[in-house]
C-alpha cells in the first residue's frame, strides 16, 4: 500500500537533492572555468618566461660558439703569420750573412765603431768581431786611439762588440744585436707587407 504523502515527501527530497547536486555541479563548472581563466595569464607568463629563458640560454650558447670559433680562427691566422714572418727573417739573415764585405761595407763598420765608442764614452776599448769582418775592423781601428782588436772571434752575422779595457762596460753593436733591438718594428713591417695591419 502506497502512502502518497510519503512519496510526495520523497519526491520533494529527491528534487531538492537533484537541484542541489546540479547547482553544485554548475558552480563547480563555473569554478573550474574561473580557475582555468585565472590560470591562462599565469600560464602565458610561465610560457613567456620559459621562452625568454630558452632564448637567453640560446644566445649564451651562440655567443660561446661564435666567440670560441672566432678566436680559434684568429689564433690560427696569428700562427700562420708568425711562421711566414720567421721564414722572411731567416731568409733575410741568410742574405745578410752572405753580404759582400767589399765596397761600402767598411763604412758600415766605421759607423758601428763610431756609435759604439761614443756610447761607451771612450775609444780605449777591446773590439770583438767575427772572422769575416776582422780585416774591415782592423783597417778602421787606427781612427780610434787606444783601441785594440781581440784575437778571439765571436759568432755573429757581422758588426762589432766593444768592451772597455777594464771589462766593466760592454756595448754590443753586432748586426745580430741591432736586428734583435729592432725586431718588433721589423715584424710589424713584414706583417704589413702581408697585408696585416692593426
Amino acid at each position: 500500500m502506497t502512502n502518497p504523502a510519503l512519496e510526495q515527501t520523497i519526491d520533494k527530497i529527491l528534487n531538492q537533492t537533484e537541484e542541489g547536486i546540479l547547482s553544485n555541479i554548475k558552480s563547480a563548472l563555473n569554478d573550474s572555468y574561473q580557475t582555468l581563466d585565472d590560470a591562462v595569464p599565469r600560464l602565458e607568463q610561465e610560457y613567456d618566461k620559459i621562452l625568454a629563458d630558452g632564448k637567453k640560454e640560446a644566445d649564451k650558447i651562440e655567443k660561446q660558439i661564435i666567440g670560441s670559433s672566432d678566436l680559434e680562427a684568429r689564433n690560427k691566422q696569428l700562427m700562420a703569420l708568425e711562421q711566414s714572418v720567421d721564414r722572411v727573417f731567416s731568409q733575410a739573415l741568410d742574405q745578410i750573412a752572405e753580404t759582400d764585405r767589399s765596397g761600402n761595407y767598411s763604412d758600415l763598420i766605421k759607423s758601428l765603431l763610431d756609435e759604439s765608442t761614443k756610447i761607451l764614452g771612450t775609444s780605449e776599448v777591446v773590439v770583438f768581431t767575427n772572422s769575416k769582418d776582422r780585416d774591415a775592423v782592423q783597417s778602421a781601428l787606427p781612427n780610434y786611439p787606444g783601441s785594440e782588436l781581440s784575437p778571439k772571434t765571436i759568432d755573429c752575422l757581422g758588426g762589432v762588440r766593444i768592451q772597455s779595457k777594464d771589462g766593466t762596460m760592454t756595448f754590443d753593436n753586432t748586426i745580430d744585436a741591432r736586428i734583435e733591438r729592432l725586431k718588433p718594428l721589423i715584424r710589424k713591417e713584414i706583417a704589413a707587407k702581408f697585408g696585416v695591419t692593426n
Partner: protein
Amino acid sequence: MSAKGGGVQYSKIAEIKGPLVVVDDVENAAFDELVEVETKDGERRLGKVLEVGNGKAIVQVFEGTTGLSISGTNAKFVGKVMEMPVSREVLGRVFDGLGRPKDGLPDPIADKFVDINGEPMNPEQREYPKDFIQTGVSVIDGLMTLVRGQKLPIFSGSGMSHNLLAAQIARQASVVGTDDDFAVVFAAIGVQYSEAEYFRRSLEESGALKRSVLFLNTADDPAIERIITPRVALTVAEYLAFELGIHVLVVITDMTNYAEALREISAAREEVPGRKGYPGYLYTDLSTLYERAGKLNGKKGSVTQVPILSMPSDDITHPIPDLTGYITEGQIVVGRDLFRQGVYPPINILMSLSRLMKDGIGEGSTREDHSEISNQVYDAYSRAQEVRALAGIVGKAGLTEIDLRYLELGDTFEKEFLSQATDENRTIEETLTLMWKIVSKLPKNEITKIKDRYVEQYYKEE
C-alpha cells in the same frame, strides 16, 4: 723618455739586496729605464732603474734576484722605459704579469709601443662619467650602479667569493642602448694557479675572451712582477679606449697583493715605513693607478676600473682600503655574515655606495624610477636589519604587523634579489622588476620615497 747611450752592459755589481741590484760605475742611466739582468748561466731577467746617482744605479729586478751573484751578473741598460706592444690584436690574448704572451701564441704585432707608466690625464680634458655599464649582477646594477669612466673598488676579505664576482662581471659586463664596442681587461695579481685558470676558462667558455685581455700574475710568480701587472693592463686599456674608441672595463684583483709587493720593495730600499710598514707614498702610488680611469673630451672610449682588494682581517680601516677609498668613487663591500649564510654575491649594501650612480641612471640610461626605487630598497632593507636586531631580543611575537612585513622583506631581498647564480645575467629591466617585487612586500603607505605615478605603474601588492 730614453736614456742617452742605451744598450750598454755593466758587469760591476756592487750589491744584491732583496729584489734590488746595485750596479756600480754607471753613466747615463735614467730613472725608470728598463734593464736586462743577465745571470751567470745566460738567463735574462727584466728590471727597472729605481735610483741613479754618484755613479750607481739601483735596479729593481721584476723576476726576483734568486740565483744571482755579484760576480758573473751583468746589467744591460736598454735605453728606454718599459713599454707594452699594443694593437687591436691583444684582444682575446692571455699575458703574464709582465705582458709576455702566456697562451702559446707569438708576441702581438704591435701598432705602437706605449710606456707602461701612462700619461696622466689632463684634468681639463676629463669628461664627467655618466653612462651606465650593465654588469648583469642585480645588486650592483640596481643599487650601486657602475658608470663608464668610474673607479669603483670591491672591498672583500680573505676566502670570500670576490674572485667569482670578478669573473662574473668580466663575463657579463656590457654597455646597453648603444652599438659602441666594449672590452674587458682583466688583471690578476698574485692569484692562485687554480684561480688564474678559472678566470681564463670562465672567459673562454662564455665566449667573452674574444673581447677580453687577460694579464695573469700567479702567486708563485715573483712578487715584484706585481708592481708591473696593473700598469701593463691599464696601458692596454688606455690604448683600446682612447686610440680605438672602445669602452673598457678593467678588473684588477687583488690590489692587496700589489701593495704587499710595494711594501717589499720599500723595505729593501730601507725607506722609512708608514702605517703597517707600507711606504709613506702608498696613497700617491695607488692614485697613479686608480686615476688612470676616466673619459676624455673628444674621445669615444672610456676606462672604467673595478679594483678588488681583500681587507686583511676584514678591517676596512686598514691602509689599503682606507687609502683606496680616498681616491675612488665609492665602494662595494663584500660582507662576511652574508658569505657565511651562503649568499652569493654577499654584498653588504648598507656599507656600499657608488658616488657617480645618480648621474648614470634614470630616464634615457636605465629607467625613470631607478633612483627612487633604489632609495626605497635601501631604506626598507636598513629597516629590516633593525627589525631583525629587535626580533633577536624580543622575539618575533613581540613585533608589530608592519615589523613582520619588513622582516619578510629582508628575507626576500637576500633570497631573491641579492642571491644570484654565478652564470645568471640579469638585465636592468629584470633587476628593477625584482626591486619592485621587494618593495611590494610593504603596504603602499610605507612607500615614501617614490613618486605616486611610479607606485601606480609598478607597485603590485601581494
